[in-house]
Structure formats: structure tokens, C-alpha cells
């Protein structure tokens, strides 16, 4: 008994207790519950009121808590006793947390202290929900009971799945059969089959042509935004993903593209009204030149200089754009209205559908060039610099000009994205170019899988598409992404869709070179 460690259980209980405390005090229990209720539908589950949904939620949390406590590798596999004991301890700690939350906030509700002055998201409704519409003590007791029982059950289940040989075999088999299927010669040969490839491309092409016509203006808007962020991601990926130079103020180039395009096509303040395509080209070139100019003095240095300098540059550009000094030239805080739309052979093609096609074409073109670059000599040089600049130089790569090229290309793509963004919104203003845009782009490149092109599509959709669809959780989006970034860097730093580049045989060298620089 003396060597029975209950640390796992305690830790799991504390972690889950803190999670439930944060969920409650950020109001997520209420919103999440509404979302669940919406998902399962109010009609079909008439008898299931929100309190019962919340019970289910708490039961799931408890099960998870218990199984986490019992699953830690520190616990020997075959012993039932420590696993169950840890589960119970986890349940106890978790239960105490819920009990304290219930009693404290329930009392606050009853004595009518408006806690919302300090914790804005704890509304009476969410407190009531947390108490299952009971008195504080009774609600707390329910919580405690649920936590204890479900954590016990969770620990038991976890132990059972770990020790039960037939179940483990079953899981292993099913895993194997899935990987067997995708890796089996038959599937591989089908995937590699030329005709199959062409057919799938054709299907994809057909989908891309048909879908924008089918969905309404809202979906075209959402996916247009996703497309623009894909462009930004592809661009940032060149300098950060491949050449390994972090750029924090990537939005600077986005702004240069958007503004140089808009100034040339907007009726005010200059009334130049240039042709869309020429202005687009100017926007791209202007962004590329700004990238080149900022890279010239900085890129012969190593380290985080580029990150810092672009961060400063992004802020300088944003402040200058909205300043009084340049209001007559840039439109000031109002931004530029009525930015020109695309034309083709003299016809204006500005409908949602047309613009969606335009964005798709831009994404395809950039993706194509990105693939070509990745496999080119330059791409390999970037990769070498990314891995170890000293070795890369020793092998005869001109690191300075390679990095300069990467930054210029990267800025050019951002300029293209900026021009398209301004043209689609028919508007651009200084607030469109806040630092948050850069951080979003960095996040999407990382989440998808740094250096990997399909990953960028996934990341852009996850970062810009999903929150638009789930507007209820809009407020929680950035919190979730922040946590996700930390967790991912820990358990899967290569992203959801990792890059297919050859891996180093001795990863430790990579770490060392990174540390010493």
C-alpha cells in the first residue's frame, strides 16, 4: 500500500478541475451545451432538456478524467488496484472542484451578487445550467456524485481495454486492416494508375467549376476568404516553411499589395481607374519590391532579425496608412472605397461566382508554381538552408541570395492575395491589415503542417472556414487556437499533414543546430 502512487489521479483531477473551471467561467458550458442541443436537434429530443444534455456532458468529462488517470504509463498494466485507485482520486479531486464551483457561484446567484462585473461570462443562466437547476448544495452534490462514479467507471474501462487481450487484439487488428487497405498493393496500384489520376483530376476540376455556382453568395464569401488565406499561407510557406526564416509581419506585404492595387483602381482619392489586370500586376510587383528592399540589408544576418524587422515594418505601414499626414494620399482611416473589380475583354466580371473562379485560378496557379519551386534546385537550396545554414554554405549555396529570392517571392504572393482581397471586398482600410492577420497566417501554416502544401489548404479551412460556419464559438476561436498551437508543438510539431520531405537520420543534430544559432 505504501508504494501505491496516487499522483496520476491527483494530477488528472486537478487538470480536469481547472478545465471545467475555465469552461464554466468563460461561459463555454452554456454555449457548448447550446451547440450540442442544436446538433442533436430540438425536435427529435423533445424530452431532453438542456440540463440533461449537460449531465451527459459532465458524464463524458468524468469518464475521460478517470481513463486519463488510469492510463498513465507509470501505472503497471496488469494491476487493477492502482488504476482504479487513481481513477477514484481523480474523480474525488474533480468532484471537489465542481462542488466548490457549484456552491460558490450558486451562493453568489442566490444572494444576488452580480459576479459579471468581474467575470463577464458567468451569467445567471450558465450558473443555473451548471447546477442542473438545483440548489447550490444539491447541484454540487450531483456534480460530486457524477464525477466520482464516472471517473471510477472511466478508470475501470481504461483498465479493461488495456488488459483485456481480446479487445486489444481487436483494436490492433482493425488498425492494421485500415493501414493494410490503404497500403495494399491493389489500392496503391489504383492510386498510382494514370487513368485513375486523370479521372480524379477531372472530377476535382468539375467540382471546382460546378460548386461555386451551386452554393449561395454566403458560401462563396466564406470560401473566397479561405482561398485568400490559402494564398497567404502558400506565400508565407516559401520563406518560413521552406527557407526557415520566420516572418512575423507578413501582413506588411499584404497591405502593400492591397493598397497599391486599390490606389490605382479606386475613384478616390486619385481617380486613376487603371485596368484590373495591370493594377493587379503592379500590386504584386510592389509587394515583391518591398520584400526585396527589406531583405537586402537584413538577410545576410542570421537569426530572428527578419521576424523583428517585418514586425516593425507591418506596424509602420499600418500606422502610416491611417495617419493624418497621409490621409489625402491613402484615404486615411476611412480606407479606399469602390476598389475596382476584374474585367475580361472589356466586360466586368464582379459577381460572387466570377470572383470565386478568379480566386480558385489564383490559388491553382500559385499552388502549381509552389510545387515546381519545391522540387526545383532553388527549393532544395532553401531546404538545405533551413536545416543548417553553415553546412548549406559549405556545400556552395549562396544563402543570402537564396533567402532574398524566397522573401521576394513570398512577398509577391502576399501582394497578389492583398489585391484580390481588396478587389473582392471593393474596399480596403488600415484595419484590414492588423498584425492579427500575420498571426493567423503563421498559425494556419503551422497547423496544417509547415512546409507542406496540402496542409496549408487544411489549415486555412480550419482557421478561416470553420469559425465562420460555427459563429457561436467565434469568441472561443483564438483561445482554442492558442492552446492548439502549444499542444501541437509538443506532440506533433510537424502539423496535421506533415511535409513529405526526407527526414534527417539523426534528429538530434537538427535540435542542436537550432539551439546554437
Amino acid at each position, binding site marked *: 500500500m505504501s508504494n501505491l502512487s496516487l499522483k496520476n489521479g491527483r494530477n488528472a483531477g486537478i487538470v480536469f478541475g481547472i478545465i471545467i473551471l475555465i469552461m464554466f467561467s468563460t461561459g463555454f458550458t452554456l454555449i457548448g451545451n447550446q451547440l450540442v442541443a442544436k446538433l442533436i436537434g430540438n425536435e427529435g429530443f423533445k424530452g431532453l432538456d438542456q440540463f440533461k444534455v449537460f449531465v451527459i456532458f459532465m458524464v463524458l468529462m468524468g469518464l475521460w478524467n478517470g481513463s486519463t488517470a488510469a492510463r498513465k504509463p507509470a501505472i503497471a498494466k496488469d494491476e487493477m488496484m492502482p488504476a482504479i485507485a487513481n481513477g477514484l482520486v481523480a474523480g474525488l479531486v474533480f468532484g471537489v472542484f465542481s462542488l466548490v464551483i457549484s456552491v460558490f457561484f450558486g451562493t453568489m446567484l442566490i444572494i444576488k451578487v452580480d459576479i459579471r462585473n468581474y467575470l463577464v461570462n458567468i451569467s445567471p443562466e450558465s450558473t443555473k445550467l451548471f447546477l442542473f437547476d438545483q440548489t447550490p448544495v444539491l447541484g454540487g452534490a450531483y456534480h460530486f456524485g457524477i464525477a466520482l462514479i464516472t471517473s471510477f467507471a472511466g478508470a475501470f474501462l481504461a483498465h479493461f481495454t488495456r488488459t483485456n487481450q481480446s479487445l486489444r487484439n481487436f483494436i490492433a487488428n482493425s488498425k492494421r486492416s485500415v493501414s493494410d487497405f490503404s497500403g495494399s498493393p491493389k489500392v496503391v496500384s489504383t492510386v498510382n494508375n*494514370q487513368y485513375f*489520376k*486523370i479521372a480524379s*483530376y477531372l472530377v*476535382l*476540376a468539375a467540382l*471546382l*467549376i460546378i460548386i461555386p*455556382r451551386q452554393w*449561395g*453568395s*454566403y458560401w462563396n*464569401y*466564406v470560401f473566397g476568404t479561405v482561398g485568400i488565406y490559402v494564398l497567404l499561407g502558400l506565400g508565407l510557406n516559401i520563406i518560413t516553411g521552406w527557407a526557415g526564416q520566420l516572418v512575423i509581419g507578413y501582413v506588411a506585404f499584404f497591405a502593400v499589395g492591397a493598397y497599391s492595387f486599390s490606389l490605382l483602381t479606386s475613384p478616390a482619392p486619385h481617380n486613376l481607374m487603371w485596368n484590373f489586370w495591370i493594377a493587379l500586376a503592379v500590386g504584386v510587383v510592389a509587394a515583391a519590391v518591398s520584400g526585396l528592399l527589406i531583405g537586402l540589408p537584413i538577410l545576410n544576418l542570421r537569426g530572428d532579425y527578419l521576424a523583428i524587422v517585418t514586425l516593425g515594418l507591418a506596424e509602420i505601414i499600418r*500606422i502610416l496608412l*491611417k*495617419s*493624418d499626414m497621409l*490621409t489625402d494620399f491613402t484615404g*486615411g*482611416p*476611412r*480606407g479606399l*472605397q469602390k476598389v475596382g473589380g476584374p474585367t*475580361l475583354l472589356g*466586360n466586368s*466580371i464582379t*459577381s460572387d*461566382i*466570377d470572383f470565386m*473562379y*478568379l480566386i*480558385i*485560378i489564383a490559388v*491553382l*496557379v500559385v*499552388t*502549381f508554381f509552389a*510545387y*515546381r519551386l519545391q522540387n526545383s534546385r532553388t527549393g532544395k537550396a532553401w531546404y538545405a538552408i533551413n536545416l543548417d545554414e553553415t553546412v548549406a554554405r559549405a556545400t556552395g549555396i549562396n544563402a543570402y541570395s537564396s533567402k532574398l529570392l524566397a522573401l521576394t517571392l513570398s512577398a509577391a504572393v502576399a501582394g497578389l492575395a492583398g489585391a484580390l482581397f481588396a478587389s473582392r*471586398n*471593393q*474596399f480596403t*482600410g488600415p*484595419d*484590414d491589415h492588423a498584425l492579427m492577420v500575420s498571426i493567423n497566417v503563421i498559425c494556419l501554416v503551422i497547423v496544417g503542417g509547415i512546409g507542406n502544401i496540402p496542409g496549408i489548404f487544411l489549415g486555412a479551412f480550419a482557421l478561416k472556414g470553420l469559425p*465562420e460556419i460555427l*459563429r457561436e464559438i*467565434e*469568441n472561443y476561436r483564438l483561445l482554442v487556437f492558442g492552446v492548439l498551437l502549444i499542444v501541437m508543438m509538443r506532440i506533433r510539431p510537424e502539423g496535421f499533414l506533415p511535409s513529405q520531405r526526407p527526414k534527417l537520420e539523426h534528429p538530434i543534430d537538427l535540435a542542436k543546430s537550432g539551439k546554437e544559432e
Partner: protein
Amino acid sequence: MKKSLFFVLMIVALLLAACGAPAATEAPAAEAPAAEAPAAEAPAAEVPAGEPEACAAELGCAVIPAGSTIKLGYAGPMTGDYSQFGIDMSNAMKLAVADFGDVEGFKVELVAEDDLASAEGAAAVANKLVTDPTFVAMAGHAFSGATSAAMPIYEKAGVPMLSPSATNPDLTKAGSTVFNRSAFTDAQQADGAAAYLFNTLGVKKLAVMHDGTDYGQGLAKGVEAKYKELGGEVVGELVAVTPGESDYSAPLASVAAAAPEAIYFGGYNAEAAVLVNQMKVAGLEGVKFFSGDGIYGKDFIEKAGANAEGVYSATLVPSASDAITAFNTVYKTSYGEDAGVLSAYTWNSYDSASALIAAIKSVAVVSGDSLYIPRGALVAAVRGLKDFQGIAGVITCQADGECNASGPVFYVVKDGVWVPAE
């Protein structure tokens, strides 16, 4: 090689599709505009027989099936530093919907969306709302920047707007058919404020500051121009501060160097409170502080405390009447807060929503089980509002969409509350 082939094919195909697109939408419209055009824009295409004649018009009809509600939109900042505006305005509109929200037995529902007071947020909200076939009118947006971003989207969908608070003068100059507002413009406000400062308060030396936003800069420039025109002296240059900061002592010190008698500030309550709090330290004790409708409300007094005493605001609080008193009672019982404490737009918002409902009533037709609201006629009806008696005043829309006749009124903080200034 395969990949490049794929990309080339794809782009050619898309280009063809893109070229084809306008032709596809335009062609039927040219051939049979009366019958086919609604299919492109409005969801009226699926309407069964029994559709009223009015729906043959260009934008078609919004069809409300039995059991559905008529959606009246509102969009403003519900979160963030300006959330008090959005919350207050939508609260007032909910009361209007409760009072008048019954059109031929169909209920009106207020859909209040958060546009974060940003252009991007507004475009997203507008694009989302217009996909709802039962969404017919917009009592917003709250902020001018957001409004100008959303306007083209409503224009396309034929959704009339009647904003109670978007005050940028340029909004009605763009030639939009759908945009109307029941607030005064910033130009009117600036003129009124400059005249009040010069004539009523007798200020001869004025310093002008703003917060670098579209709204603040516009007001500041307007006041500067009008004040000079009246013969006053504007000392120093326009001083802009960076919004969101907590230390404006340096800019204030540069204002103090010019020794003004009063400061006009174009901006919102958060920055105004910081300025007012630091005026004494900067050597501006006893200098009057004057600002626009953006600082009126409870938040400013809470943030500035005792320093708020004697601060002026040009705003659009209506003069007292029985209707206002009755409304204030209902507002207080519904939300536990006095009307007009959160923002000055409470009464105006109520009027905007009720005027829109009145316009809907004037054009809606019942046919069979459903209610038909011809969109084109509704746009015209809102623009044609005449002598609509609201609680804050009479709404009569001009040809350009300006629906407010009265100018700003002036309030001052006295003993911790906003009271009308003499």
C-alpha cells in the same frame, strides 16, 4: 508533367466557366426580364402559383411561409469596447418588434448580429443575412465603416436599410438606393458643435484632437473648418492619438503648449476618458472638454469619475415627451437599466425598427398561406417614408436617404449624470 497538365486544364476550364458565368446570368434576364430575373437574385423562384402580381417586379418577393417569422436585421458591435452601443440599440429594437411586430398575422423577428464594428465583420454578417429568404430589412449597421462595407451587399439583394446611428456624411452621397438613416450626419453634428462652442460657450481658442478613426477624424476636421469659418481661432495642428492606449500625457502636453480655452475631441468614450483623466497632469486644468455622440453614455462617466464633470457631448437625445416617458418605463422594466444610459441611440433605434416595420406593413400582401413582401416596393417604401411619427421625432426621408431633420442637442455631465446643457 501530369501535374502541370492538370493545372493547365483546370485553369482553362475555369476561365471558360468564368467567361460563361455572366452570359448565363444575363441572358435570361435580357430575354424575359419579367418572368426570369427573380430567379437570379431572389429565392422567389420556388414560389408556387398564387404569387401576387407585385412579385413580378425586378427583385421579386420575400416569401414568408405560414409559421415562419419575418426577419428584421440589426448589426452592430455586441462585444468589445463599443459593445454598449450594439447591446443598447438591439434592446430598443426588440421593444419595437414587441410593440409593432405583427404584419397580417405574421410575426417579425429581430436578428441581431455582431459585426464587431469592423468592415470585415460587417461584410460577413451581411453576406450571411442575405442568404436567408425571409430576411427583408436592416435596421443598421451601427457604425459607419461597417455600414459602407455592407451596403453593396444589401444593394444587390434589395434589402432596405435604416440605420439609427451611421453618421458619416459620405454614406448617403454614394447614390445607394437601399441606404437610409435616421441619425444626423457627422457634418451636421460638427457644425452644431462648432457653433455651440463659439456662440454659446464663448470659446475663442479651440484645440482639436481626434482618435485617428474614420469617425473621429471626420468630426475633428468638420469642427475645425466650421469653427474657423465662424471666426474662432484653432490653436495648434490637429492632434491625433493612438486608440487603445492608456497614456496620452505627451500629446496633451503638446496641446497645452498652445493654451486653448477648450478642447474638441472626435472619438469614443474609452479614449476620451483617458484624456479627461490626464488633462490636469498635462496642465490643462479648467479647460473645457467637448466631444460628440461617441462619448455620451454611462461608460464615459464610469471611466472618468469626477474628472467627467463639466464635459460636453453633442448628441441626439430627443426632448422629453409622454411617448418617451412611457418608453423609458418599459425599457427600465425590461432591462433594469435606464434608457439612454448605455448610448444616446436608444430612442432612435426604436424608431428605426418601428419605421421599417411600418414600411413592411405597407407593402406586404397575403396570398394563400404565405406572406409576400415585394423587395423592390419595400426599398421604395422605406425611401418614401413620410411623416412617420416616432417617439424621438418625425421621420421623413429625403431623396438621398437622409431621414433626420433635427440637429444635435448638447448634454453636459453634472454630478455624475448627463443633463441637457443650457
